[in-house]
């Protein structure tokens, strides 16, 4: 394993939480009910807090003086290493193109799939040979566990709700399922990281993920989609078009007023 692999892996961890957190934060002030507005904002805050640890660690390992802010705000889309799942939009907004918020069912489906995987991943990272990764993972695992409680309970409530909510929840899970393959598909970096004992082999997470998904879907009276064709590329910087818009909003202040602080 090279330093480059180590940094790449930390960027994957950091970008998953940064992009996922930024996406969720689009709900701030637009939640369907006040409690959910607060819940989604709190989850977003936790994820962005975790991203700060991961990106700070990435900058330290890289050793070229880049800070968490440099990595978050001054990289282009092709340099982002998050999985495609977390950048997927919150679903169609009701307020037209400039509207915020989105489709709550789509957001919950994405968050639930991510949380289920995130809990498993962090559980493995607690024993990482990189002590700093192990420490961040131990902290983040506790938070991911209650994020998962929140999203799983909503999948059950909406799936086992009315015919209409059941149908929309199933549709949302079906539409996002093609982004789950990437979570378990190792590439060269993953293989070297696993060999060095820094992170798990991604494919080792699949059985626990499926078991957890099946338990929730059974309660929710929903069906697990078949593992068909899977879209991959996020970990290598090949993203869906949605990431660019997200970054444009997230980065525009630092790009326009370089070095601005307050």
């Amino acid at each position: 394993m090279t330093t480059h692999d180590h940094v790449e892996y930390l960027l994957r961890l950091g970008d998953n939480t940064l992009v996922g957190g930024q996406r969720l934060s689009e709900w701030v002030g637009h939640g369907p009910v006040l409690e959910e507005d607060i819940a989604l904002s709190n989850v977003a805050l936790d994820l962005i807090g975790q991203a700060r640890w991961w990106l700070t660690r990435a900058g330290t390992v890289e050793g070229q003086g880049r800070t968490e802010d440099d990595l978050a705000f001054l990289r282009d889309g092709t340099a982002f290493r998050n999985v495609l799942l977390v950048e997927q939009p919150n679903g169609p907004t009701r307020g037209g193109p400039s509207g915020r918020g989105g489709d709550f069912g789509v957001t919950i489906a994405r968050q639930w799939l991510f949380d289920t995987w995130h809990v498993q991943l962090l559980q493995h990272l607690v024993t990482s040979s990189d002590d700093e990764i192990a420490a961040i993972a131990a902290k983040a695992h506790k938070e991911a566990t209650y994020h998962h409680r929140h999203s799983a309970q909503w999948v059950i409530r909406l799936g086992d709700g009315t015919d209409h909510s059941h149908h929309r929840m199933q549709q949302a899970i079906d539409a996002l399922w093609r982004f789950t393959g990437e979570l378990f598909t190792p590439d060269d970096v993953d293989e070297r990281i696993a060999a060095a004992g820094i992170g798990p082999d991604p494919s080792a997470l699949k059985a626990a993920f499926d078991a957890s998904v099946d338990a929730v879907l059974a309660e929710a009276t929903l069906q697990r989609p078949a593992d068909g064709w899977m879209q991959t590329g996020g970990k290598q910087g090949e993203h869906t078009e949605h990431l660019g818009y997200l970054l444009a909003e997230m980065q525009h202040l630092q790009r326009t007023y370089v070095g601005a602080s307050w």
Partner: protein
Amino acid sequence: MAAARRALARVLDPELPVVSIVDLGMVRDVRIDADGAVMVALTPTYSGCPAQSAIEQDAARALRQAGFASVRITQVLSPPWTTDWMTHAAREALRAHGIAPPTTRPSGLFDEPQVDCPRCDSSHTHRVSEFGSSACKALYACDACLEPFEHFKCL
């Protein structure tokens, strides 16, 4: 050192101004370094806690006011903070403030902790939302006295 600890015991959590950072268990180490600087190791409660930097500034200010010219605040992540480190005094202060203190950790996805109403002590309560006004709290309501209240989640 005792003076430093006393100063830190007066630093309150800005989002829960009834408990100190010492009672919350956030202060992991206090020592005087070889150069005479006081070194304080703080651990964050939640990764996303927006009060973290305010707490660090408050702690540094309290130490300077207590006469320490040179103050170093560091962050430690491991072992991760847990509500088990909250003192009995902190739990009672929360309850008196109308916030149900941490109870037992949920053992699984479908397990619900028993949370008693901080106002009337009834065990007939239900969770309204997994999240409250801050990441560390959940919203509950009492089915006996009908009052809504917050519960400091067990982490």
